[in-house]
């Protein structure tokens, strides 16, 4: 890859392009910060304690916590004690959402966290490693009068991780344990308006089920979903970005095919990067508004994974192709050592994701973290992926170091070279340094904004304006990597002079204007002709 547009552009043009991209960047931050609401919202639910008084246990009876046909409720378990109601006859009912509200497909996903309020009692403490067994059913309906339709039913086990922070004395009876949040449910699409959860904690002394879990006072749930407003802004952004990346991609590939030589590896990789970006961009999520596609969440994960893997591979190959050590690379197989960890690490994460979100397609209550074996397995996958990531970064850093070493080596030799050779190397160095700079800037931005979004509470007040920092982070960073890919495809496309007179035939459509502009640019640059001579030279090399 020689003679990219970036080298032939005047500094002025380059600055203009940079400013335009920066404007888009600012715009993408503003869209998230000012228009979109916060990305997700969490809703608290307190489970109603219903009494299942029917002895025969009707098979499909659903308990409503409020509204018409609500169940027979008890306030506290002391009341149940007095009325001799057993634990097995108690059903915790939670209706999602709260009254007068409706769920909507715009929420994209819904995950539910479970929390137990367990009071400390001297004689009824939580045993070490206590497991709680939850019999849970999920039902839905789309209007307020029809019957509930069962969506999922499962018996799940969760480990109670509770500790009591004060001294275990009679004085402190009645204080609550501090328990870890338990992952409870994850649904990949919110196609229905109303959901109902019925939770039982069956007790069996013989089977040692739900024994030694202390005195449960309440069950609290937290439902998390993506905000509809954020989804709309996000979709709008994707819908806008898809064609822009697609167009530049087609334009880029046209330039490559118009060349006489076959495309080199780096050009192919850049093109692949464009494809993976487009793959993320294509707003297939629009379908989730109309269809009940629960696999959308998993699909989104896979798309992101492919893009990340592609981006990492691109960096490695870009470094490799700019090594300037006379080794013939230009083959993908040369990079197996560096790309291997990426592929392997991504594969591990893919397996992990399949084990978690994949299984959740059939059982929304499944969690790989619920069992010890699962936790170990999950940790193993994540650790292996982490090792791969470390390995990758070691390779990358080493390669960047090598490039810089070669650059300084070449620098001293530059004056002695022929003009064409010198321009070739100067071009290489400039291209590399430019990408290096931009990449570092983008990565730094990502890291900085990630940290900001992690530490602050999500929104800043600026006079009358509320800036949603988290939304700005998502849209801004997403926009940034899109612009990054866009800029790479635009600036690193082969210079048009390669196919000399072809564009003058005037059938280039929208691109021709740009080409002519570039022609005028190049005439200002010193010694453009040499570059073109040089390109002939490189193809000989």
């Amino acid at each position, binding site marked *: 890859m020689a003679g990219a547009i970036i080298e032939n552009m005047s500094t002025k043009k380059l600055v203009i392009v940079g400013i335009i991209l920066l404007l888009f960047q600012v715009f993408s931050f503003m869209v998230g910060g000012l228009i979109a609401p916060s990305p997700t919202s969490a809703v608290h639910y307190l489970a109603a304690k219903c009494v299942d008084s029917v002895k025969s246990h009707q098979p499909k009876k659903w308990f409503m*916590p409020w509204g018409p046909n609500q169940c027979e409720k008890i306030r506290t378990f002391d009341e149940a004690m007095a009325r001799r109601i057993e634990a097995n006859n108690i059903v915790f009912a939670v209706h999602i959402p*709260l009254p007068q509200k409706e769920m909507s497909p715009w929420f994209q996903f819904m995950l539910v966290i479970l929390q137990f309020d367990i009071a400390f009692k001297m004689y009824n403490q939580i045993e070490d490693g206590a497991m709680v067994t939850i019999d849970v059913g999920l039902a839905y309906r789309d209007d307020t009068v029809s019957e509930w339709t069962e969506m999922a039913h499962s018996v799940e086990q969760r480990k109670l991780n509770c500790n009591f922070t004060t001294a275990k004395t009679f004085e402190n009876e009645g204080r609550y344990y501090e328990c870890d949040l338990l992952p409870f449910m994850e649904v990949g699409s919110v196609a229905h308006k109303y959901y109902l959860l019925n939770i039982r904690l069956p007790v069996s002394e013989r089977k040692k089920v739900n024994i030694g879990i202390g*005195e449960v006072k309440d069950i609290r749930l937290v439902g998390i979903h993506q905000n509809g407003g954020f989804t*709309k802004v996000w979709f709008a952004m994707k819908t806008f970005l898809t064609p822009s990346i697609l167009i530049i991609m087609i334009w880029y590939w046209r330039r490559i095919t118009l060349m006489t030589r076959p495309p080199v590896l780096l050009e192919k990789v850049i093109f692949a990067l464009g494809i993976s970006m487009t793959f993320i961009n294509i707003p297939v999520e629009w379908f989730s508004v109309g269809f009940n596609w629960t696999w959308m969440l998993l699909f989104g994960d896979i798309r992101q994974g492919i893009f990340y893997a592609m981006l990492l591979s691109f960096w490695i190959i870009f470094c490799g192709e700019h090594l300037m050590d006379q080794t013939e690379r230009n083959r993908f197989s040369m990079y197996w050592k560096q790309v291997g960890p990426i592929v392997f690490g991504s594969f591990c994460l893919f397996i992990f*994701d399949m084990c978690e979100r994949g299984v959740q397609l059939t059982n929304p209550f499944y969690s790989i973290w619920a069992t010890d074996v699962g936790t170990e397995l999950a940790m193993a996958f994540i650790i292996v992926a982490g090792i791969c990531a470390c390995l990758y970064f070691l390779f990358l850093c080493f390669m960047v170091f090598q490039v810089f070493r070669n650059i300084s080596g070449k620098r001293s030799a530059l004056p002695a070279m022929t003009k064409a050779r010198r321009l070739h190397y100067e071009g290489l160095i400039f291209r590399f340094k430019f990408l290096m700079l931009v990449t570092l800037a983008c990565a730094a931005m990502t890291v900085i904004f990630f940290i900001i979004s992690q530490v602050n509470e999500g929104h800043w007040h600026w006079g009358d304006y509320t800036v949603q920092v988290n939304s700005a982070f998502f849209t801004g960073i997403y926009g940034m990597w899109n612009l990054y890919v866009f800029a790479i495809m635009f600036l690193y496309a082969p210079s048009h002079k390669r196919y000399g007179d072809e564009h003058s035939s005037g059938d280039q459509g929208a691109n021709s204007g740009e080409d002519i502009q570039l022609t005028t640019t190049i005439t200002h640059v010193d010694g453009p002709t040499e570059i073109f001579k040089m390109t002939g030279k490189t193809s000989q090399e």
Partner: protein
Amino acid sequence: MTSEYLLRSLLMLILALFSANASNWLYLAKLSSLGSISDEETCEKLRGLIQRQVQICKRNVEVMDAVRRGAQLAIDECQFQFRNRRWNCSTLETVPVFGKVVTQGTREAAFVYAISAASVAFAVTRACSSGELEKCGCDRNVHGVSPEGFQWSGCSDNIAYGVAFSQSFVDVRERSKGQSSSRALMNLHNNEAGRKAILNHMRVECKCHGVSGSCEVKTCWKAMPPFRKVGNVIKEKFDGATEVEQRKVGTTKVLVPRNSQFKPHTDEDLVYLDPSPDFCDYDPRTPGMLGTAGRYCNKTSKAIDGCELMCCGRGFHTEEVEVVDRCSCKFHWCCYVKCKQCRKMVEMHTCR
């Protein structure tokens, strides 16, 4: 002229009496026989509410059950926190519930006001999360009450609604008189301190749910502390309460510490105007002043629950009683206990 003056002063006196008993609504806790407060007519019949509170009741009938539970919660928590003190928060079957003990601006009154304001905020917030109330959360949003508001940006936290309701319902008495008297200022401050005990002890919990569950996407929320914790916080504030007096700063009246050496109180601290009585003896003229005669005390303790202090130096009886205790119990998580009965002899000390 004189008659009018007399009438006015009488009116002032009545008002002052009323304002002193601003925690009368706690009497709601005693109305368990009433069933649920379901329609506006019931509001009129509720004892202990002032006219403005009845209006609030009528406008928010669905919330009143939660308010009543809050009142009960406040009394229970007060009795738990004061179980070892001379004044043990015992209630009467009259209005005001705590008798005349809280009508003076004492520490105890400060505690009662704080815990009751907190308990209403707590109970209303809980009722919100359990779906009993229809207008929680979302009505404080920019996008209004419409379902679109919920769809666009979700709802704000229920605690905001609970606190706002507590402010309007509990504080209304003090507010109606234009915040003039020092007692009103004290009550308002303590009410707010009670609510702050919840707000400043909200637990932030987070869940990561990005790609493969990474923290790329993280949602955090604030969880309300258990009410026992709120009670403990307010009890600590009770122990370190500041004695204040009213002073005029510019045109507004403010409460400042009586002892200028002390650092000024914060929003979370309790303040009081009058020193507490010793609560030692039964006083028939002061309802609620039951004295400590007949109370159990701890012989070995040197603290307030010890017999020395509890019995105010009057001495104590000691008798040996056989206590039937539960032992080697089997529990289920709810509603089931199977125990053996163990008998043991215990020395009980009661104040003379």
